[in-house]
C-alpha cells in the first residue's frame, strides 16, 4: 500500500513524467505501482482460497464418508436465513463494486456513501448470523455441548437433557452410542447420530472463519472510508479502495460456496 504520508511533491519537470505524491520511489509510474498492488492482492486471495480449501477438503471427505448423517443434520440449518444472508452479501458486493467505480471517476462523496452501505450490509450479515448461531447453541448443537466426544461423556446419564436436546443412550455391539434428539428447522423431531457432530463442527468452523473475514473486511473498509473522507484518494490513485473491495468480494465468494454446501445440499423432504 502506498505511503500516503510521504510528501515528495512533484519532482519531475515534464507534465507526463511528474512524480505524484502517492507514487512510491521504487516505482516508475502509477500504472506500474497499481499493477504490482493488484498482483500482490491476487496472490493473497489465492492463499485465502487455499486456507478455506483445507476446510472444504475436510467437508468433502466427511460428506463422502457419511452422506446420510450430513443429509439429516443439514435440516437443522434455516434455508431462508441462509438465503437472506446470501442476498445481503451479494448486495454489499454490488455497493463495494460501485464504490470502486465512484473512486475510479474521482467522485469522493459517492465513494463514501457506497462504502458506508457496504459496511452496514456487513453488520446486517452478522446480525442474521447471530440469530442463527444463538438458535443452534440453544439447541445444543455446538460441539461439546449436546455432542460430546464419547471418551469424555461417560458422566452423561441416559435420557439426560442438555439444553433443548436429549441424549439417548442405547446398547449396541459398537458400544454406547449417544443419540441426540432435537427439533429441526422443519419442526420435525430428529434423532441425530453422534456423528452429526462432524457436520455441526464443520458448520461452526467454516462459517466462523468466514465471520472473522467479515469482521476483518469491515475494518479494512472502515479504514478506506476514513482515508477517503480525508481526501487521500483521487481518479489517479484509488488503489486502497480497489484492494479493500477485492477483499470484500473474496468474503462474498467464500459465502457463495458455503451457502449451498451447508444449507442446501441433501435430500429434500
Amino acid at each position: 500500500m502506498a505511503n500516503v504520508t510521504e510528501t515528495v511533491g512533484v519532482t519531475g519537470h515534464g507534465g507526463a513524467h511528474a512524480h505524484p505524491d502517492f507514487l512510491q520511489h521504487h516505482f516508475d509510474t502509477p500504472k506500474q505501482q497499481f499493477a504490482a498492488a493488484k498482483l500482490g492482492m491476487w496472490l493473497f486471495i489465492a492463499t485465502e482460497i487455499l486456507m478455506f480449501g483445507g476446510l472444504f477438503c475436510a467437508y468433502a471427505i466427511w460428506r463422502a464418508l457419511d452422506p446420510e448423517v450430513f443429509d439429516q443434520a443439514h435440516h437443522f440449518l434455516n434455508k431462508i436465513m441462509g438465503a437472506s444472508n446470501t442476498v445481503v452479501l451479494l448486495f454489499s458486493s454490488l455497493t463495494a463494486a460501485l464504490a470502486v467505480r465512484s473512486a475510479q471517476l474521482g467522485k469522493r462523496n459517492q465513494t463514501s456513501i457506497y462504502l458506508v452501505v457496504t459496511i452496514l450490509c456487513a453488520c446486517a450479515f452478522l446480525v442474521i448470523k447471530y440469530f442463527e448461531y444463538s438458535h443452534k447453541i440453544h439447541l445444543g448443537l455446538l460441539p461439546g455441548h449436546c455432542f460430546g466426544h464419547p471418551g469424555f461423556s461417560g458422566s452423561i446419564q441416559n435420557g439426560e437433557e442438555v439444553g433443548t436436546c436429549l441424549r439417548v443412550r442405547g446398547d449396541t455391539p459398537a458400544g454406547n452410542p449417544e443419540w441426540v434428539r432435537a427439533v429441526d428447522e422443519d419442526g420435525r423431531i430428529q434423532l441425530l447420530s453422534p456423528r452429526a457432530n462432524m457436520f455441526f463442527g464443520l458448520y461452526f468452523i467454516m462459517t466462523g472463519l468466514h465471520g472473522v473475514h467479515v469482521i476483518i473486511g469491515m475494518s479494512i473498509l472502515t479504514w478506506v472510508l476514513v482515508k477517503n473522507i480525508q481526501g487521500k484518494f483521487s481518479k489517479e490513485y484509488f488503489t486502497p479502495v480497489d484492494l479493500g473491495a477485492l477483499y470484500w468480494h473474496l468474503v462474498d465468494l467464500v459465502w457463495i460456496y458455503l451457502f449451498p454446501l451447508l444449507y442446501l445440499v441433501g435430500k429434500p423432504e
Partner: protein
Amino acid sequence: MALEHPHADHHDSLDDGGVHAHVSSAQFYWGIFAALVLLTIATVKVSYYDFGSLNILVALLIASIKATLVATFFMHLRYDSLFNTLTFIASFLFLALFILLTYDDLGHRAKYDVDYGSSVMLRTGQAAPGGMPATTATANEVPGAPPGPAEKK
C-alpha cells in the same frame, strides 16, 4: 448492457504511465447483481427437488456461475492483467489437487466402516488410528431407543 468509457479509447494505447481503469456503468453492475440474486433464488428452488447424487453437482454448478460473475465483473478480472486471472484459477486447481489426493489417500489407507463409525486398515482389518471410537449404529438397531429419524411430530 451499456458500458461507459469515460477515458477515451486512445488512452489505452498511449502509455503515459497513469492508471486508466476500465469503468463499467452503474447499470451494468446492477445487472450483474440482479443475475446473482436470480441464481440464488434458483439454487434455493432446486434444493427442493431431489436429483439424487446430482444434488451437489447442481448446487456447485450454480455457485460456480455466481463466483465467475463476481470474479469477472465485480473483481474486474475481465479488464485486469491475465496473470491475475491465472493466479486466481491456479488456486482452484491446487485446491482440486488437494481434495483429489486426500480422497486417494483415504481410499488406500483404510476403509471406513459405517457400522462401527471408524476406519479399518485394509491389510490387517484392525481399526485405523485417529478419528472417533466406534460409536455408531442406525437408529433401528438401538434397542429401546426412540423411533428412527424423520419421525413426524
